[in-house]
C-alpha cells in the first residue's frame, strides 16, 4: 500500500470540563490521499470539527488528544515539537473557518495579514512578499488587489472575507486544506462562488481537501469520499455515490430521509426522532441507538465495529451483522 498523505489512526480527543470528561472524538480513523476531497459530515456535537482541530493541534485549552496517532507522510505528528508544528500549520496543512469575520483581525489591513502568513512561512521579504500577496489576492478571484491590500476586514463582504481566508491558507501552497464549514455563514449564491473557487484551486494546485460540514448538499456536490460521524465516532464511510445511494447505517439512512430532496418533494419527511446526543452522557453501546428506530438489544450494550460493505464502503451498524447472519442462515 502506498503511503497516505495523512492518516488518522484511532484518534481519541477529550475535553476536561468541570462537569467531567467529554469524549468528543472516540476512536476515529481515516486516511487522505493526495488530491482527494474528503467530506466529514455530521450534526453539531458529532466531533467533526474537533477531529479537524486535532489534526492541526489547535484544540481549546481544555482539550487534549488522549489516544491514537496522526501520521503526516508517515511521520507521527505527536512526536513533533511545537516549532515543528508551527511550520506544519500553514506550510503543509492549512485551515479555513466558518466565520470569516471573527477569524480575521479587525485592526490590521488585509495586505498586512496576508503578508504575515507569507513572511512566516517563506523566504520572501519586503517588496517580494508584497508581490506574492497581490498574486494570492488575484488567485482567489478578487480584482483591484492593490486597493484591497490597504482595506480592513470590515470593508469587505462576507464572501470576500472568506476569499481572503482562502488566500491566506494557500499562501504556502499546502498539501492539505481543511475547510471547517466554509460556507455556512454565507448566502446561497455566495456559497456557490466559494465552493467553485475551492474546487478550481484544488484542481489547479492538486492539494487534498478535508471539507467539514453539516450540509449534505455541499457534500454531494464536492466530495469524492465521505465520512459520516455521530457522537464522536464514524458510523459510515464510502464514496459519495455509495453513501447517498446505498446507505448502510441507520443514522445515514435517517439523515437522507429527513432532508427535503428532489425525489421526496411531495412526500412527508421522515424525521429522526429524539434529540441530539448529550456528549457528557454517552450511551454504552451504539451512540445513535437511543434515536434509532431499528435498534436491537445488542445496540444498547455493545459498540458496533466497522463492517466492509463493498470495497471502501464501511459501516458500523449491528443491522448489517444481522442481515449477513440471516443471509447465511437462509442458505
Amino acid at each position, binding site marked *: 500500500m502506498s503511503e497516505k498523505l495523512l492518516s488518522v489512526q484511532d484518534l481519541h480527543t477529550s475535553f476536561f470540563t468541570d462537569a467531567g470528561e467529554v469524549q468528543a472524538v472516540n476512536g476515529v480513523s481515516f486516511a487522505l490521499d493526495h488530491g482527494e476531497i474528503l467530506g466529514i459530515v455530521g450534526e453539531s456535537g458529532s466531533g467533526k470539527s474537533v477531529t479537524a482541530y486535532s489534526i492541526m493541534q489547535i484544540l481549546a485549552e481544555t482539550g487534549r488528544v488522549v489516544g491514537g496517532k496522526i501520521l503526516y507522510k508517515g511521520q507521527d505528528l505527536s512526536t513533533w515539537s511545537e516549532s515543528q508544528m508551527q511550520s506544519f500549520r500553514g506550510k503543509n496543512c492549512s485551515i479555513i473557518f466558518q466565520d470569516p469575520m471573527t477569524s480575521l483581525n479587525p485592526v490590521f489591513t488585509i495586505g498586512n495579514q496576508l503578508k504575515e502568513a507569507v513572511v512566516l512561512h517563506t523566504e520572501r521579504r519586503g517588496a517580494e512578499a508584497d508581490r506574492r500577496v497581490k498574486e494570492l489576492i488575484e488567485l482567489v478571484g478578487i480584482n483591484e488587489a492593490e486597493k484591497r491590500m490597504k482595506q480592513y476586514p470590515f470593508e469587505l463582504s462576507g464572501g470576500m472575507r472568506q476569499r481572503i481566508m482562502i488566500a491566506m491558507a494557500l499562501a504556502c501552497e499546502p498539501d492539505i486544506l481543511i475547510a471547517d464549514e466554509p460556507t455556512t455563514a454565507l448566502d446561497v449564491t455566495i456559497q456557490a462562488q466559494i465552493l467553485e473557487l475551492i474546487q478550481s484551486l484544488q484542481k489547479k494546485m492538486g492539494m487534498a481537501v478535508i471539507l467539514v460540514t453539516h450540509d449534505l*448538499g455541499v457534500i454531494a456536490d464536492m466530495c469524492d469520499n465521505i465520512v459520516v460521524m455521530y457522537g464522536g465516532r464514524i458510523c459510515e464511510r464510502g464514496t459519495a455515490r455509495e453513501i447517498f445511494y446505498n446507505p448502510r447505517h441507520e443514522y445515514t439512512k435517517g439523515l437522507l430521509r429527513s432532508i*427535503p430532496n*428532489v425525489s421526496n418533494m411531495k412526500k*412527508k419527511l421522515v424525521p429522526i426522532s429524539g434529540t441530539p446526543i448529550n456528549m457528557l452522557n454517552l450511551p454504552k453501546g451504539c451512540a445513535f441507538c437511543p434515536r434509532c428506530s431499528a435498534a436491537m438489544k445488542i445496540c444498547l450494550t455493545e459498540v458496533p465495529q466497522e463492517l466492509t460493505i463493498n470495497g471502501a464502503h464501511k459501516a458500523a451498524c449491528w443491522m448489517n451483522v444481522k442481515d449477513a447472519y440471516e443471509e447465511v442462515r437462509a442458505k
Partner: protein
Amino acid sequence: MNDTLLEVRNLKQYFPVKTGFGKTIPLKAVDDISLTVGRGETLGLVGESGCGKTTAGRSILRLYEPTAGEVIFDGEPVTAKNITHMRKLMQMVFQDPYSSLDPRMTVEDIIGEPLDVHHLCANRKERRERVLELMSFVGLNAEHARRYAHEFSGGQRQRIGIARALAVNPKFIVCDEPVSALDVSIQAQVINMFEELQEKLGVAYLFIAHDLLVVHHISRRIAVMYLGKIVEIADADELNEHPQHPYTESLLSAVPIPDPDVTRARKRIILEGDVPSPLHRPSGCPFRTRCRYATEQCAQECPTLTDRGGGHQVACWVK
C-alpha cells in the same frame, strides 16, 4: 374573492439612516411589495440575507409601522388602531429559539401570556388546560410545563415558540426562518409539525427562509425577493421547474442538492459579485448589476410584476 386571507398592497418599509451632517437617507428595506396568501395556504418567501424578507414579515404584522401600503386581513384593513384585535388572528414564530423565549418564565407562562393579554381564559384552571392542550399539539409533555426555556434543546424551544403563536387560535402565522437554527436531523421534525398543524387547524403560513429545498417542500407558492422587491411569484413546482427571472434561475442553480448524480450533472450559474447595499441601490431593476441579460432599459426603469399565465408573476424586462 373569499379565498384570500391576507392581501398586501404596495407595502413599503423605509428606515432613516443618518449619513452625517444632520442628513438622513431612507434605507428601502421593503420597496413596494404586493402579495396574497390564501386560507390555509403556505406562501414561501425566499431571498438572500439583507433582501428584506424578515422586514416584510414584520411590517405585515405591524411590528414596524409601515411607511406606506396596505395590509388587508380577511377583508379588513390592518391599522394601528385595530392591531390588538388583529394580533389575535395573526402571529409570528421567530428564527432564534434561544433569544425569543424569556429565560425567567416557565413554559406554562410563556405559552399562557398571549391568553392573558387577550383575556381568553376565565380562570387559572381553564388557562392551564388550554396550555396543556397547546403543548400536546406541538409534541411537548405535560411535565414540561413547569420548566424554564434553558432546560430544552433547540428543537423543543422552537416547539414552545410555535405553541405560543398558536395560543390565540390565529388564522395566519409568519414563520421567520423557523428551522434554520436547528440541526439537520431536527429540522424535519419541526417541518412535519408545521404541516400537521396546518392540516389540523387550517392555519395559513408566510414561511420565510433562505433554504430553498425546505421552502419548496413546505410551500404551495413561493415568492422570491431581491433588494426589497419581489422579483417572481409562482406555484412552488412551477418556480422550481421553470424559473423565469434570471435571479431565481441562478439562485436555484446555486442550491447544492443532496444527490451526487443530480447536483453534478446540472449547470451552475454563478453570479458575479455581491448583493449591492440597499442604501445605494442600482437605478432601474435592482438585479441588473449582476444580471447576464441586463440591457439599457433595465438601468432606466424598474420592471413591475406581471402575470405570465397561471399566476406566475415575474418582474423582468428581458425574460
